[in-house]
């Protein structure tokens, strides 16, 4: 009898850990750290969104709303209600998760493009509310956010900290935090995917009918993964708000939702490491294209099209497949 091969997660996680640990060596200045922090935070959203889109096969074109929800909730709770950042972040995650649960119930019955349309609609409505309620949200001019503090210690990007005799800048500390959060997010996602719940989610994508006859309440599971991915986005949004110190309604925009889904598809649907690469690429491309000035948009559009045409499964799955073929 053949032995059962179990999927091993350790090598991937170790590789991720090494990359995250080595990346600071590439950072020559605070700006490089800034980019890496943003990549980590965006990748957290992408990892969560990938659970919904890549694994469970339910497209959302409105996820920026949850990201913005986390960001604004954190900002407002710390500012107006004297919450400490950590409880604020948790409260925000619970609120955003509940909101996702509430709106997810009716719309997740929709299929295909209608689901895309409905999520798009929710996202745009959220953006309009944030934009219009300027008494609360600061409107289009944006809202300043207090720096993060953990257990009474303020973690300002601009600070400088003593750590075991080493001096470490606020930006570097923030990188550690963001990278740690990303690592945790990936670990949780990999656990989920490899669990019975994860199989049920993947079955939603593979064959909803098969899932049903196996006893999976598909509506309930869609809702669950929708909420999980919303909470991922919310936490990343909260972190971003504290990190950047200033948020505007742009983060809730349709364009940002599209950017998030593009990251998932570009990096590779149903590939947790793929979407991290997707986040890195999508955030770095504009930095590399600055030299091209006016050509930036054309090049970006062309790159996006070319990758998707020639690698329709996304970067990482396509490359992985090629390696496997060569090895075989």
């Amino acid at each position, binding site marked *: 009898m053949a032995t059962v091969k179990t999927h091993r997660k350790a090598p991937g996680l170790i590789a991720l850990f090494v990359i995250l640990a080595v990346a600071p060596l590439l950072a020559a200045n605070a700006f490089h750290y800034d980019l890496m922090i943003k990549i980590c935070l965006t990748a957290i959203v992408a990892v969560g969104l990938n659970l919904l*889109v890549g694994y469970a096969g339910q*497209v959302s074109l409105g996820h920026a709303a949850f990201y913005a929800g986390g960001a604004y909730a954190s900002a407002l709770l710390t500012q107006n209600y004297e919450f400490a950042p950590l409880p604020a972040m948790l409260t925000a995650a619970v609120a955003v998760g509940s909101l996702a649960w509430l709106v997810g119930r*009716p*719309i997740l*019955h*929709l*299929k*295909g*493009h*209608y689901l*895309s*349309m*409905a999520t*798009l*609609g*929710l996202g*745009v*409505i959220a953006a*309009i*509310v944030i934009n*219009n309620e300027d008494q609360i949200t600061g409107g289009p001019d944006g809202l300043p956010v207090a720096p993060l503090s953990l257990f009474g210690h303020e973690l300002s990007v601009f600070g400088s900290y003593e750590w075991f005799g080493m001096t470490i800048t606020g930006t570097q500390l923030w990188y550690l935090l963001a990278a740690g959060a990303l690592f945790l997010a990936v670990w949780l996602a990999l656990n989920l995917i490899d669990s019975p719940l994860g199989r049920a989610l993947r079955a939603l994508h593979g064959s909803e*009918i098969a899932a049903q006859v196996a006893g999976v309440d598909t509506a309930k599971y869609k809702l669950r993964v929708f909420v999980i991915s919303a909470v991922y986005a919310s936490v990343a949004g909260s972190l971003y708000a504290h990190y950047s110190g200033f948020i505007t309604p742009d983060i809730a925009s*349709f364009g940002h939702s*599209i950017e998030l*889904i*593009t990251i998932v*598809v*570009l990096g590779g*649907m149903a590939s947790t490491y793929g979407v991290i690469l997707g986040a890195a690429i999508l955030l770095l491309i504009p930095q590399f294209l600055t030299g091209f000035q*006016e*050509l*930036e*948009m*054309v*090049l*970006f*559009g*062309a*790159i*996006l*099209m070319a990758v*998707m*045409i020639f690698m*329709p*499964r*996304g970067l990482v799955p396509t490359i992985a497949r090629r390696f496997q073929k060569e090895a075989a």
Partner: protein
Amino acid sequence: MFSEFFQFSFSGITLGAIYALVALGFTLIYNASHVINFAQGEFLMIGGMGTVVLMDAGAPIYLAIPGAIVMAGIAGVLLHKLAIAPAKNADVVTLIIITIGASIFLRGLAQIFWGKDYHALPAFSDTESLSVGGAVLLTQSLWILGIATLLVVALGLFFTRTALGKALLATSMNKDAASMVGIKTGAILTLAFGIAALLGAVAGVIVAPITFTAYDIGIMLGLKGFIAAAIGGLGSSTGAILGGLLLGLAEAYTAGYISSDYKDAVPFVLILVILFFLPNGLLGSRAVERV
């Protein structure tokens, strides 16, 4: 009282007619290839901006307009040939991202070659506006309604009276069956993109005198067209027209009677409510999943 109602209605129907034309383009491409073409709005931009550019280059308006429409048609054909057809087995989401890439690409090109300024086209007729029931009706609105109606009728005739149109219809219903009876489905799909682009371009030209035109107008109009198509039910031409008009009127009445602050949210609330009760839009087909 009534004059206000008329005013809101005129404004709503004019906008609605435009949304309907964009939605028709979406529907056409969706039917033929099940792709949601997020670059549909760019065809409007090419129509409008193309006309402006050709007129600036000295072409008279009666040459500039067809010239711009042809440009859009070529863009539509190229979009299918170069971007959609090579990725034919890709996931639906992947195809969506490809069309988003195409829309960014086209917008970028327009920005480089045609500039970033807004432009106004002259109205098609000299008399600016008429007074109907105490409300003002722009003559350009009449042009828009007339041309939109004409296009819808022409499209209807094309599908029912011409061999090409019937072939397109057959392909959209069942691609495999169509190719078995000898229809070149690849060419037909290209044709669908071309026609959708033409429709978009015409819409882009006829609105330009009212709404102006620029390299980035495609985003908003394209999105509205997608909403209209979804309200009507993806794949239904009648639904697209109905969805467009409904959307236009809903916007105008909300701005007029309720609050302009949340006017922009109305289309999205509308679509959510409609999809809640009719998960396939107003006139979308209710396909039974075969197992």
